[in-house]
């Protein structure tokens, strides 16, 4: 059974603290993602990684960094937490699909973790 596991379901931190959110997948997926989920705003991509040690900024990377030292693990880091980073954080993974010639491009299905609800006081 496909599994994406986020280490912490609930965290409460104080402003200025450093926060680590960890995500592990057991599907040997190349791609891993971090989203934040906020009511009325949907899911917004923070960072993604398409290979070990490779990362790219998503739509809202400010205030965040990531680390991918091993294929199965993707960590989200808040160097100095702020109250506006209070949110639900979702990790996801997928396997890429390659295009060739006129063949349809099929994006890999995203598999999500259960989420980490972070509250910054």
């Amino acid at each position: 059974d496909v599994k994406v596991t986020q280490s912490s379901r609930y965290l409460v931190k104080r402003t200025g603290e450093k926060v680590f959110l960890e995500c592990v997948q057991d599907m040997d997926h190349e791609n891993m993602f971090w989203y934040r989920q906020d009511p009325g705003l949907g899911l917004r991509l923070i960072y993604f990684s398409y290979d070990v040690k490779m990362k790219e900024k998503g739509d809202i990377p400010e205030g965040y960094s990531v680390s991918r030292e091993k294929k199965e693990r993707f960590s989200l880091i808040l160097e100095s937490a702020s109250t506006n980073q209070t949110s639900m954080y979702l990790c996801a993974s997928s396997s890429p699909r390659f295009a060739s010639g006129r063949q349809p491009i099929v994006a890999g299905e995203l598999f999500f973790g259960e989420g980490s609800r972070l509250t910054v006081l």
Partner: protein
Amino acid sequence: AQRVTQPEKLLSVFKGAPVELKCNYSYSGSPELFWYVQYSRQRLQLLLRHISRESIKGFTADLNKGETSFHLKKPFAQEEDSAMYYCAPNRPLNAGGTSYGKLTFGQGTILTVHP
């Protein structure tokens, strides 16, 4: 800018009524489109993708390139359909590219089906 819009934050229907969740996108080319669903206390999961042209749990979604829409429909809603639904286009790629599956999600629609 590439954008996806789900105009309804909340949608309420009664059991047995038809339901349509709207999604409009503004992408050049031909994106691949998905609907993801999150049931209460469950993780977000794929519901269906337009390329499969399949019906999942009675839901279908037709890509209308002229209107740039990908509305999700079900003729007879059930209480267990109550959930948060997200529309998500995958950016179109030229042949030879690699799809990283970097989806842009809409704002989401909370569907409530009343008994």
